[in-house]
């Protein structure tokens, strides 16, 4: 380090050269939450393979992926929302409402399916926009309360529209979303991968993403720095609505019909995936990749447990315990060092 001494009055201060390259350290590299997640992921695969000979069956694995991936679209914006120190528990209801409106427009109003799909996305975006506007407008209300309100509201509207009926009879091509393959790859997996890349870049490589992290760490300072905090929030919540609508499309396509009670408790699965992915519930910290790995951990875990006929109630218990362990272990002082590195790594 080069130093030049400079004396001003009685006060000396040291002129330093600041490093502008981050030193690479293997230790730091391996002490990342994501490695632990990858480890757990393989653990799930190994255990499942030993428990059931059918697990690694290619077709089965592919079908499983199709089934759990639909809700995973909402994971992307939920990561952003939780980094903002907010939460959105209305996404399940948004899925139901946009799905029900899409089906009703097609079946009862004879809209072409393409237009119905567009309407579905529009409804989702609108639901998210309303959430965002309410949260920005009523700053003293927490996002939990606001989205609890819209969660009940959106679900209620879905029930009024469809009155506990099912609505199906979609054109044959619509099933492609849920069941189609492109070059041997499930279509849903391709869309998921593309969106995963897009959202990862958006969060970690753009000025928009930087502003999200800034707000999650210190909203006041962000505002004083000229970040348009209301605008960022509204955009992120609207994105959550759009992703919920995409979930609605894939889910409806896979099931062939929809009811007002679809996607119940989806928000909890999504939040579980995000939390398992290492996104701090205190806001400001976390990485998209962690949540993406967590999607596959929870997805394959549930699929594997299903194969060996574990009742769904037990599955809930196992999922709950896994989540508690995931968010609890880093808080235990098992390894101070690990904690410190994790804190430095995730920002």
């Amino acid at each position, binding site marked *: 380090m080069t130093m030049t001494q400079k004396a*001003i009055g009685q006060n000396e*201060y040291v002129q330093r050269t600041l490093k*502008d390259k*981050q030193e690479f350290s293997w230790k730091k590299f391996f002490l990342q939450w994501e490695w632990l997640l990858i480890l757990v992921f393989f653990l799930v695969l190994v255990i499942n393979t030993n428990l059931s000979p059918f697990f690694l069956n290619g077709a089965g694995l592919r079908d499983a992926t199709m089934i759990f991936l639909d809700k995973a679209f909402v994971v992307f914006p939920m990561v952003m929302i939780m980094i903002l120190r907010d939460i959105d528990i209305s996404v399940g209801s948004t899925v139901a409402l946009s799905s029900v409106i899409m089906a009703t427009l097609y079946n009862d109003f004879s809209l072409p399916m393409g237009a119905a799909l567009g309407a579905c996305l529009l409804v989702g975006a609108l639901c998210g926009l309303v959430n965002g506007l309410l949260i920005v407008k009523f700053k003293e209300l927490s996002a939990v309360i606001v989205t609890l309100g819209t969660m009940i509201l959106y679900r209620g509207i879905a029930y009024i529209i469809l009155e506990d009926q099912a609505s199906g009879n979609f054109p044959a091509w619509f099933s492609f979303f849920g069941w189609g393959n492109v070059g041997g790859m499930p279509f849903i997996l391709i869309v998921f991968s593309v969106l995963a890349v897009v959202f990862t870049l958006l969060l970690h490589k753009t000025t928009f993403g930087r502003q999200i992290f800034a707000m999650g760490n210190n909203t006041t300072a962000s505002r004083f720095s*000229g970040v348009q905090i209301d605008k960022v929030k509204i955009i992120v919540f609207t994105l959550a609505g759009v992703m919920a609508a995409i979930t609605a499309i894939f889910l409806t396509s896979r099931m062939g019909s929809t009811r007002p009670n679809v996607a119940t408790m989806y928000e909890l699965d999504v939040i579980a995936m995000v939390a398992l992915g290492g996104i701090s519930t205190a806001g400001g910290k976390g990485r998209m990749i962690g949540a993406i790995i967590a999607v596959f951990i929870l997805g394959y875990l549930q699929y594997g447990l299903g194969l060996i006929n574990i009742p769904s109630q037990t599955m809930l218990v196992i999922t709950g315990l896994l989540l508690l362990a995931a968010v609890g272990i880093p808080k235990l002082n098992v390894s101070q060092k690990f904690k410190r590195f994790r804190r430095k790594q995730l920002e």
Partner: protein
Amino acid sequence: MSEYVLEMKGITKRFPGVTALDQVNFKLKAGEIHALMGENGAGKSTFIKVITGVHKPDEGDIYLNGEKVEFSSPIDAQEVGIAAIYQHVTNYPDLSVTENIFMGHEKVQKLTGRIRWKEMHEEARKILRSLSSSIDPKAEMGSLSVAQQQIVEIAKAISTHARIIIMDEPTAALTSRESEELYKIAESLRDRGASIVFISHRFEDMYRLASQVTVLRDAKYIGSWGIDEISNDALIVAMVGREINQVFPDRNGELGEKLLHVEGLSKAGYFADISFTLRKGEILGLTGLVGAGRTEVCQALFGIMPYDKGTIELKGQKVRIQSPKEAIKLGIGYLPEDRQLQGLVLQWSIGRNITLSALKKFDAKGWLNEKKEHAFTKNLAEKMHVKANSIFDLVSSLSGGNQQKVAVAKLLTAQLDVIILDEPTKGVDVGAKTAIYEIINDLAAQGYGIILVSSEMLEVIGMSDRIAVMRAGRITKILDRETVTQEKILEASMADKPKKNVG
């Protein structure tokens, strides 16, 4: 028995890096209203905290009625009859008046532990009546006005049978009528034999109430006088007459064209009729007592606090600033007073903090150019002499002075013309202060127009070309560098005639 109910001798209190009280003496007679005066930061608040047992003095003795006492906690002080009513009312806004009065010493039924509500309400009513107040004991504290809340605080002091009552700037938030009521209550307390220590920046308060005045300056005891023994002028000299011990860089700035012109800026309840001009290369000091509305004016210029009336002209163009983003875009930057809460993201690295207010600069179609960002922040942080190893060091690991340098660097990232610095040397040690003064001076020389908000008179006098003094939301005087004195500033900031309140 001693002549004094409270006597303090040679009280010294040190905090890491500063001596907050240095050999302070204080004598309080029974039935006396005693004013305690001094500038911001003179040590008054610390002194009160010593009396009330919040701080333990490092040296010195406290005598109560001639007996030496030692307080290890505020409860000890309460038990011997010392109560304090603070500047910012500290209470439980969601609880009833009665609950607030009896908090911590509720009347409780023996054995069962039942709270004797009826008795408490009755007692509360009695105390409030004795203060000629008609506040309902069952009313919610938060629904009362500040003046009423203060009366409740006084009632609380009476309910604990306090003999010594300390009032820390109780009239700061009151209208003159409300103040008059408070004076009457203080007098009636005195007539019942209680002693009152009264802290206020308002001379009118002191002349109206006190019979004795003690002055602190720079943590030291200056003197104690009977109210008739000292003139207004002599008092001001006692409060500010210190030696200059901070070296300020020379101002040889050449003032350029008009940058910012503010005319009649007003916001009901905060400030009114603010007019001034700022030139290129000029440092305009903005001073006045805490709460005079300085920060609010700055925040209006920065688009954080919306204003009702008035015009802002920037380089001859009329502008309406509605958000910090707009302000920055127009070329106005603001260094907030609370750098930890408003200025910096503490959990972030130096580099990220520096670029936050001008991310656009490193934005190529939405993508963040981190290479450019790193090079830029390295350069700027070095220019500011930030003491650290790398631009990835967390800001929370830096000292106050270095944090402030990062905050200033952050301003320089954007293309600004006007820089507003709100208490830039608050919580910064002496060495770093000098560095910050040099930086400010450099910025002015580079042609920035600078508004320097500060409560430290020497700083304002040493740094500014002109000084605007605010009092109760208005600019009372704009003083020139050549003719300014501390006395003039103090006079302008503490006009001794009551003025109409803003809004």
